[in-house]
């Protein structure tokens, strides 16, 4: 299943958004602080509502600092936050999930659902509030999406949301995990638990994934030779190890705390591509990687997906000209965030940009310049 369209109202810094999503890779462009992460957060929010453990609407809102942090500052008369996702599986199965909520005007100021609808092939399965909701408004604090008893008819949608993966691997958290001893967020967006995830897969799957990743790393990292996995005999902790071509052939294996930031990020990226078939959100995958490697990311995603049976829908936020320099990137998957005084809006490529692309220019040349802040040159004088 994949998301085909997203409609938002009053979500964070977006007053209104209505954009199509492609089955393949969506490239999300925009200047700093325009709302790229906020856009990705919609799917994380839906995941937080529907995940099996510790989910739910109230917690998902609370974790984001309450509705006042969630609702668009530019929201005017209508105070509801509204999310509508269209999903599709094959040609015949079409789903729509709509959720809007606001907080109570008085009392405990709980978050209450004002609408929750599920549509399957243009047939409405659920349309809340129903009469029971009206007579007992505590019912409106929970979505049908988060409850196993009530989401049975649209379990596929609930599963789609709860399987969303967000990846923004921070190499330092992984390398210095022991020293930092940091708290880990539940869904591990920053990759602290990456090694445990690798450890939890079965031997056979792990071997085959690491082999594929090894092949890619050999191209990207000079001197790189072999990738392996081991458990520390004393502590039992899982570790990744790599062997480099070396003037001393027996120089030994290096563990992940000796890997470069770029190698680790690339590893995390490749692993998540192979990991499942659910929606994958990638936050600036170009960080700490060499431009020459970044240039290959779109094609790498494609070739990894070709190799495996699973294909992930991907939404990727980026600033990188290198990443967008391949003229083969399908511009139908490009979304541009445009900040303005009333919050941000999102647009697809314009006709003149389309002309440029069909003439052989890349997204980096045609679309990216419009996301450059106008007064960036001034920063040098600061």
């Amino acid at each position: 299943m994949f998301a085909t369209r997203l409609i938002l109202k009053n979500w964070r810094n977006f007053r209104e958004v209505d954009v199509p999503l492609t089955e393949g890779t969506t490239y999300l462009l925009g200047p700093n602080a325009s709302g790229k992460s906020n856009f990705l957060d919609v799917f994380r929010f839906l995941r937080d509502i529907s995940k099996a453990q510790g989910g739910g609407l109230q917690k998902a809102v609370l974790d984001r600092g309450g509705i006042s942090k969630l609702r668009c500052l530019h929201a005017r008369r209508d105070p509801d936050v509204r999310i509508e996702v269209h999903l599709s599986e094959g040609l015949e199965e079409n789903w729509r999930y709509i959720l809007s909520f606001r907080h109570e005007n008085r009392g405990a100021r709980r978050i209450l659902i004002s609408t929750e609808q599920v549509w399957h092939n243009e047939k409405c399965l659920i349309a809340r509030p129903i009469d029971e909701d009206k007579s007992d408004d505590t019912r409106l604090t929970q979505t049908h999406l988060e409850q196993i008893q009530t989401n049975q008819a649209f379990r596929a949608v609930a599963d789609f949301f709860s399987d969303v993966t967000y990846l923004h691997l921070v190499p330092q958290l992984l390398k210095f995990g022991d020293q930092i001893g940091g708290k880990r967020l539940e869904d591990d967006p920053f990759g602290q638990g990456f090694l445990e995830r690798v450890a939890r897969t079965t031997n056979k799957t792990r071997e085959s994934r690491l082999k594929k990743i090894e092949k890619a790393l050999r191209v990207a990292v000079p001197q790189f030779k072999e990738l392996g996995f081991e458990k520390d005999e004393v502590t039992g902790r899982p570790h990744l190890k790599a062997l480099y071509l070396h003037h001393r052939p027996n120089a030994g294996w290096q563990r992940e705390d000796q890997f470069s930031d770029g190698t680790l990020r690339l590893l995390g990226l490749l692993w998540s591509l192979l990991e499942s078939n659910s929606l994958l959100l990638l936050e600036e995958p170009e960080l700490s990687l060499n431009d020459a490697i970044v240039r290959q990311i779109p094609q790498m995603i494609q070739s990894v997906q070709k190799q495996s049976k699973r294909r992930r829908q991907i939404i990727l936020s980026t600033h990188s000209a290198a990443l967008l320099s391949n003229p083969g990137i399908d511009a139908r998957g490009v979304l541009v965030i445009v900040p303005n005084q009333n919050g941000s809006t999102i647009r697809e490529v314009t006709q003149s940009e389309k002309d440029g692309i069909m003439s052989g220019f890349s997204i980096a040349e045609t679309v990216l310049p419009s996301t450059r802040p106008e007064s960036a040159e001034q920063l040098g004088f600061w």
Partner: protein
Amino acid sequence: MPTIHLATEDHVTEMVGRRLIREIGPSFETGVAFQKNGFGYLKSNMDKFCELARRSPLLLLTDLDQENCVRKLLSTWIGQRQLSPHFLFRIAVRETESWLLADHVGMRKLLVKGARNLPREPDLLPDPKRKLLQLAGNAPREIKNDLITARGALASQGLGYNQRLGDFATNDWSPSRAASNSPSLNRTLVRLNELAQRLSSG
């Protein structure tokens, strides 16, 4: 070991340039490979390239594209500058793709069924890249998927276009075979060999 610097406008042309330098002899190697997408970079750095060629040999490859006349292109690029004899400024007529298409044996290996109607004089094609993409439509699926876009996609070429053709230029393409079908490539090889002789003897 004598090195020759290389200046090109895209990945595929860079790989072609490297292959050409290998062709003139095993003792030659590519020095710095200057390449940023597009010819604007090359054109705007002509002064520096001229200066560089005074110190060590340089091969610059560009496309004639839609320009009609080689001489006219040369005069707009070079103007009043004096080129060092170590500066080889070569123009593919009309694009690097014509040089690739000119090696029929290599093309048959790459495109298999797609290589049925290979152009005999690729230098005369008005749009060699389009011709190549057209032929790729009948190539084996893996090659086809790399070179051309999926149906309905908003893109001018496949995601793997540069890499696939770059690999082809490096591994399967033979400059000498191709030179027999492409006069512009043939002249380039002759000039390169002359340069190589000068370098070896002096």
